[in-house]
């Protein structure tokens, strides 16, 4: 049966060293529909998008545009085939006007063409109106809010006669009002015949505007409940069914045993704490020996709040208590040395590790003051001992501790990052996205490690967007949304029940 597909991805497999990101994935896009692509972090969404936009090439499988086979070797080629992407981060020229951004491909085609400002403004006006922006084409893009900038990007996509517009988390950084406008716009444009791929974590939006849904989980398509299709019409789906498709798991789910903290002391507490980058006041408690999970979608504000607690972005209002004592938070060094609070960044490559230095040097970087002798000279022996200790404890796979960290696998890099934090002997550890992009075996090792640390008396806050992970390991779960704490749940470790309760808190 010949369906009128404008885009088909057939049996796409993409493998990275140690990780199979996509396993025989299919994706068919009908002309004129809004097709949602949904899945948790790590499910394979972003890899699929990168293949669609020519950033990656699949190891297996083929791509068809309008029933013609194509190979998308780079973003330019994807663009020539009519695939337009509006990314999460803005790709506009901030110093140009709205019109200049929208029409940029038209007037930058040849070096020698002249700029007819009037024509650019006029031509752009058409698309500005199309997306419902109420402003002058001569307005500078850098003066616009994030939401308006996004609309400009959509207008830009429309101006190049895009066949397909892919929106990647479009409402992640827009205001509530702008969000409504954006969803309306997508609906209107769809009615006019534009085809959209809509990638979002926000399930309520999927039900709001999508015609069809494709769910990815662990790199594979998920069959719709009750149907056998992998592309499910939204009208045939209930919220619960969709959630089950996203997070439901049939394989054995092993979680850690329950632990009770009702009689334990509070080791870290925040009361209505806010800072410059984490402006909404938040309160929570962390008990000694507890593994507390912070769950939220991308952009929920957990990292920003962690940065407040550790002194990177010191609090401007509210109170923070460490070990029961009120603390004036000044900077990272103070919180580390005086209060034994250590933070492991989610971007281990950009913020957590010294990639060009060896494992040994990385691990010792947090305890430089402890491995020196009177004259400020390094005690190499001590350094070696400490590094070897963690190499053993964490089972870091490397021929030697002098190996440059850049050459290690992601999992081992993460272990080095953790070792770096542990060497400082913190009492409280905040780990941000500990197992992103890491193979399953190492993931389990890190989970076990975190559990053991808490059994030894350390307290851990684990920030993660991985539902399965948090339900497996956390004693309690704090749920974040849009910079606020929506609620706190005692973890029963029953997957189905907990995942639904968490999603409910987020979707309300």
């Amino acid at each position, binding site marked *: 049966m010949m369906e009128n597909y404008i885009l088909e991805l057939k049996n796409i497999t993409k493998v990275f*060293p140690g*990780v199979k*990101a996509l396993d025989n994935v299919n994706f068919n896009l009908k002309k004129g529909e809004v097709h949602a692509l949904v899945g948790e972090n790590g499910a394979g969404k972003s890899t699929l998008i990168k293949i669609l936009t020519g950033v990656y090439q699949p190891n297996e499988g083929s791509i068809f545009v309008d029933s013609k086979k194509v190979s998308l070797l780079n973003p330019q080629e994807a663009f020539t085939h009519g695939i337009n992407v509006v990314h999460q981060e803005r790709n506009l020229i901030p110093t140009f006007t709205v019109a200049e951004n929208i029409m940029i491909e038209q007037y930058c085609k040849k070096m020698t063409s002249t700029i007819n400002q009037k024509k650019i403004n006029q031509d752009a006006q058409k698309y500005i109106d199309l997306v419902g922006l109420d402003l002058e084409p001569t307005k500078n893009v850098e003066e616009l809010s994030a939401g308006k900038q996004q609309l400009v990007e959509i207008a830009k996509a429309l101006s190049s006669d895009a066949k397909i517009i892919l929106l990647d988390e479009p409402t992640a950084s827009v205001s509530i009002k702008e969000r409504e406008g954006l969803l309306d716009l997508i609906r209107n444009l769809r009615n006019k015949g534009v085809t959209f791929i809509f990638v979002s974590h926000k399930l309520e939006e999927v039900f709001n505007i999508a015609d069809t849904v494709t769910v990815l989980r662990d790199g594979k398509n998920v069959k719709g409940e009750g149907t056998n299709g992998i592309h499910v019409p939204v009208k045939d789906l209930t919220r619960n069914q969709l959630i089950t498709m996203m997070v439901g798991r049939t394989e054995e789910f092993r979680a850690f045993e329950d632990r009770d903290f009702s009689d334990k002391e509070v080791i870290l507490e925040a009361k209505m704490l806010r800072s410059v980058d984490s402006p909404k006041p938040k309160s929570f408690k962390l008990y000694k020996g507890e593994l507390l999970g912070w769950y939220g979608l991308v952009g929920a504000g957990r990292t920003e709040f962690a940065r407040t607690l550790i002194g990177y972005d010191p609090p401007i209002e509210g109170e923070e208590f460490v070990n029961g004592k009120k603390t004036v938070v000044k900077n990272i060094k103070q919180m580390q040395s005086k209060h034994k609070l250590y933070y492991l960044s989610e971007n281990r490559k950009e913020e957590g590790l010294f990639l060009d230095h060896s494992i040994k040097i990385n691990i010792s970087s947090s305890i430089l003051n402890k491995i020196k002798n009177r004259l400020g000279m390094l005690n190499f022996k001590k350094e070696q001992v400490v590094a070897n200790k963690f190499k053993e404890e964490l089972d870091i796979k490397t021929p030697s501790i002098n190996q440059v960290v850049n050459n290690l696998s992601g999992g081992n890099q993460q272990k080095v990052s953790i070792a770096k934090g542990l060497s400082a002997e913190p009492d409280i550890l905040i780990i941000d996205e500990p197992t992103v992009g890491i193979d399953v075996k190492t993931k389990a090792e890190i989970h076990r490690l975190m559990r053991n640390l808490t059994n030894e008396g350390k307290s851990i806050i684990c920030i993660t967007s991985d539902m399965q992970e948090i339900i497996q390991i956390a004693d309690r779960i704090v749920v974040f949304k849009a910079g606020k704490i929506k609620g706190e749940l005692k973890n029963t470790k029953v997957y189905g029940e907990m995942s639904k309760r968490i999603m409910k808190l987020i979707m309300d």
Partner: protein
Amino acid sequence: MFKTALRKIVRNDLAGITFALVLLCTLLTIFTDGFFSAYNLDSVIKNISIFTIVGMSQMVTLGVGQFNLSVGAIGGCAGMIFGALIELMGIPYVIAIIISLTAGYLLGYFQGFLIVKTKINAFIVTLALASVYHGLNMTATENRFFRDIPNSFKVIAKGNLWGIPILLIFSFITMLIFWILFNRTVTGRKMLATGVNVKAADYAGIDSGSTIRLAHGLSGLLAGLAAVLTISKLGAAQTSIGSTWLLVSFAAPILGGTLLSGGKVSIVGTFLGAALMTIITNALVLVGISFYWFQAFTGGILLLAFALNKIRESMNTGEGRVLIEGGK
């Protein structure tokens, strides 16, 4: 096979440059009369000594991931301060040296302070300050010479200790001190960490701001040292000291394996780089190329150094890496 050998030479910084040096010296000894003469070698070694220190001045800032365009200007200031102290105030030269070096340190430290405080990029700050310092220097001294340099001081440049030129001993001692700093001390480790990744250093509890200020300060101090030694060699203090240092200050460390991106320095490499630059210039003289072309050569060598640097940097990120990018 040739390609892998070439690759090894480029990668293993010291082997490659040592090879080039040895080759060059051999060729010069064979094909020219003047190279291996005592006079020539003496002059070459003295220049190498001073240029090593100039190169280390830049190397220190490269180590923390920064640049210092005012090495010459700070050197010039420190040099004139030294001259003024000796000639106008009659201060004994040991004390004058200490004061001049301190002045160099302070000028550099101020630079680092501005950079950290205002977060303006190092290029423009050091460029602007270079003019500020140089302008001040020229104005305050009215471009005069200080010629009344005591002979005992000139001995530093002219004399030998146990057959080794004292200038060379100075540069070796400086090299040793900085080698210890970067390889053996906590402070040096902090500086290199800042150079590799400022953010990671901050998160590890290392105060990146203070390492940057220190690096600029040390850079200024070394510039001052180079100026003082130059005065000893010239026998006079003049404002033109330092005016030709900018290029050499980059060429020496980069040829020797210090990375432009920061976090890796090579003290011995800087010495070898300075040696290579000096001997190439010497070769030009001996071969009879008019010295007006020297700057062109220096620039060309610097371009080569950048090309080498780029190759080295891309080798770091390309070869032998096991990449795991998760599907996110």
